[in-house]
């Protein structure tokens, strides 16, 4: 192992770990908006209780997402100086735009969302939450734009200066909307919403199994079950399939690698699972005949190009990308099955509540969703190898040349240790939070709803120091403070 290999592993490890959290946050955010809307519409305090509970979980997820996200941004320069010089014109501006447009919005309004439960009325809290969730999605849009540019670069010209190439932007719109962007972002959004609804589903099903917080768990299911079922089916049938078509159209050699297809083939099969022997150039496993041709080109007798039609030095690690891809597909199909059966049982005389095995299946959906997301990420990134920027820059040419093996080995060891601790703490606190359950109503309703400002006008009237109205409260002491 040299500094380059270790840098690859470090980036893969830190990115995979980071990528646990943002999708979960986006999806849970969507659930929180649904809960908030239900609260605003019905005024039923159980929704407020539920919102409180999930907001605290959101805070935990968000904190880890931010902490590990900064690492990603720094790592481009730390380990991939060659890459940074090559893409800076293009990639850096997308990162900067992400910061200006999305991160500030998210970071700024997060405080209102997390600490506003007893300071803001239902509508304002819903407003703040919606802004945070919108910003999280907006942030994903920018970073996926950047990633899509690395998959299908467009809107640039190559310039040589000082003996080194670099990509200079010629058209910002082309850079933003490269051909792979739209399928990519839709696939990721749906995966994130699935993960978020799966989280609510898992915890709610677990409460029902344990016969605790029954009312709240039912409320959680009511929101998460239909969302999960519909999205899980759509992900397989529409968005995932669409992403595969995008790979077919723009990255043929990647398609061949992730499917383990060695030679050109008419009526190419889609594997369900299998094993690739790279030295013998064979792929064995269980497959559905002709499905790959059909999914890729819309007709069962189309020819799909095999790896041998491309230079060997443009092949991704075949078995690794094959396994990542098929793990994702298999889990996605399983999730769709759980979703359909779960929803059917739920709507069919609420049989779900009495069927323990079905509830247990719901409990594991969050783990499955996360696994699918991670393996999907590996598919797209490992499948892009040996390129870091498709057909333009090889990963080995992007590495920082000044790093010693020892430096990267120590930083990788540090990140592994640090992230193991983080994951341990995260799971410990998440578990503690779930075991404890939603806070009792009297704690949640520390401030009566009627006393909270619920429009921008209220904020300035109630809290504003300029007001002459007798009803105004002194600004320094919001009415809801409880000193433990």
């Amino acid at each position, binding site marked *: 192992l040299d500094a380059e290999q270790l840098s690859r592993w470090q980036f893969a490890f830190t990115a995979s770990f980071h990528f646990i959290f943002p999708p979960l946050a986006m999806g849970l955010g969507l659930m929180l908006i649904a809960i908030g809307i239900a609260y605003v519409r019905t005024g039923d305090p159980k929704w407020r209780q539920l919102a409180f509970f999930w907001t605290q979980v959101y805070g935990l997820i968000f904190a880890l997402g931010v902490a590990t996200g*900064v690492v990603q941004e*720094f790592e481009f320069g730390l380990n991939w100086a060659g890459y940074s010089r090559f*893409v800076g014109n293009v990639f850096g501006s997308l990162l*900067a735009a992400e910061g200006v447009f999305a991160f500030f919005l998210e970071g700024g309004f997060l405080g209102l969302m997390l600490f506003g439960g007893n300071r803001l009325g239902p509508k304002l809290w819903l407003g703040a939450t919606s802004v945070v969730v919108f910003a999280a999605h907006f942030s994903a849009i920018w970073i996926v734009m950047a990633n899509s540019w690395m998959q299908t670069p467009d809107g640039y010209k190559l310039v040589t200066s000082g003996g080194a190439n670099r990509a200079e932007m010629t058209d910002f719109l082309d850079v933003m909307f490269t051909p792979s962007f739209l399928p990519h972002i839709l696939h990721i959004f749906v995966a994130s919403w699935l993960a978020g609804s799966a989280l609510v589903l898992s915890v709610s099903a677990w409460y029902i199994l344990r016969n605790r917080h029954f009312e709240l768990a039912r409320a959680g299911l009511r929101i998460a079950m239909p969302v999960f079922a519909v999205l899980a089916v759509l992900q397989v049938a529409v968005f995932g399939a669409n992403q595969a078509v995008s790979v077919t159209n723009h990255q043929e050699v990647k398609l061949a690698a992730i499917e383990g297809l060695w030679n050109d083939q008419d009526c190419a099969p889609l594997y369900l699972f299998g094993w690739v022997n790279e030295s013998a150039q064979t792929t064995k496993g269980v497959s559905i005949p002709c499905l790959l041709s059909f999914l890729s080109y819309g007709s069962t007798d189309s020819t799909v190009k095999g790896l041998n039609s491309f230079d060997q030095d443009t092949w991704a690690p075949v078995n690794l990308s094959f396994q990542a891809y098929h793990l994702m597909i298999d889990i996605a199909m399983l999730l769709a099955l759980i979703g359909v059966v779960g929803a059917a049982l739920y709507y069919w005389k609420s049989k779900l509540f009495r069927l323990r095995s079905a509830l247990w299946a719901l409990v594991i959906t969050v783990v499955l969703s996360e696994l699918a997301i991670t393996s999907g990420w590996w598919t797209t990134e490992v499948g892009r190898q040996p390129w870091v920027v498709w057909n333009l820059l090889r990963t080995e040419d992007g590495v920082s040349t*000044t790093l010693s093996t020892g430096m990267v080995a120590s930083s990788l060891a540090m990140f592994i240790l640090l992230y193991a601790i983080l994951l341990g703490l995260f799971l410990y*606190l998440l578990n503690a939070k779930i075991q404890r359950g939603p806070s009792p109503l009297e704690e949640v309703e520390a401030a009566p709803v009627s006393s909270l400002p619920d429009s921008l006008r209220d904020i300035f009237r109630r809290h504003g120091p300029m007001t002459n109205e007798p009803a105004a409260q002194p600004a320094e002491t919001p009415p*809801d403070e409880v000193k433990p």
Partner: protein
Amino acid sequence: MSLNEVWFVLFAMIIGGYLILDGFDFGVGIVHLIAARTDTERRLMLSSIGPVWDGNEVWIVLGGGVLFGAFPLVYAALFSGFYVAFVLVLLALILRTVAIEFRSKHQGGRWRLSWDVVFALASAALPFLFGVAFGNILAGVDLDEQGNVHESFIDLLNPYALLIGLTAIAMFALHGLVFLTMKTEEELEARVRSLIPRAMLIFFTLTTVSVVATAVFQDQVSDRFLSDYWPFVFPATAFVAFLTCVRMVRAGQDFLAFVASSATVGLLLASGGAGMYPNLLISSRSESFNLTIDNAASASNTLEVMLVVAVIGMPLVLLYTSGVYYFFRGKTSLGPDSY
């Protein structure tokens, strides 16, 4: 002003925004163990930055993105060249986040004390590392023709850089204390106020030594000041801002004292920036290897696009950031959702 000059100034302003805003978070952390004694007091300290520290940290993320986009060669040279230092920055940033988030999520004296210590150490480590990095940037680094920096972490810990690192700790400790005067009450407030004179003395002494050391040992910076005299505006106004801060603290004008303290931080950074201009990274090998706002920048196309983004985005950022600060203004108290 050329586009490149605009981006040099904007980048400096973003770093300034980061140091002023996250700077008081550092400061609260640095004095956390000294100023707050009881569990309630420590929760109050954390809650004083609770709703804003996350947003403050975004400024460094933006700074990284802007450096990457506007001056990619500097971004590449600096981060790969200061590898160990920046990995330690990441370690401290993560540990600080974890300490703030996890400390109060669990009862138990030892759990909470451990995270309090982590919070304090990480909060001191960040300005120290940034100070050390800045010290080396001012002093110049072993930068080759390809724009690669050849410095080991031990090389970075030279006496001058260490001095700047310590000065940074002192500066943010003071900045955090001034911030806390607005946020605390009763005993905690009294203790915070009693620490301020000492913090001012230490900060003033270290800053004076740093300024003298820079003038004497860093010729590339002092030449810059002496060649056109206008850069002297920055250290001079920084001094005035500091005196104003002293006066305002005495007068009990806490908000104005905080404004003055923020101005001191920003103007000291501007002094360093003016001393560097138009270089972004100075090579100790040869002046011709210096990375400047011209030879290290992205093409004008990119700089234009980024300027449009900044012109649309930054006013909005400032607007709602002020809104959030306004909403959470005043003394901190603990509620059911506090840290």
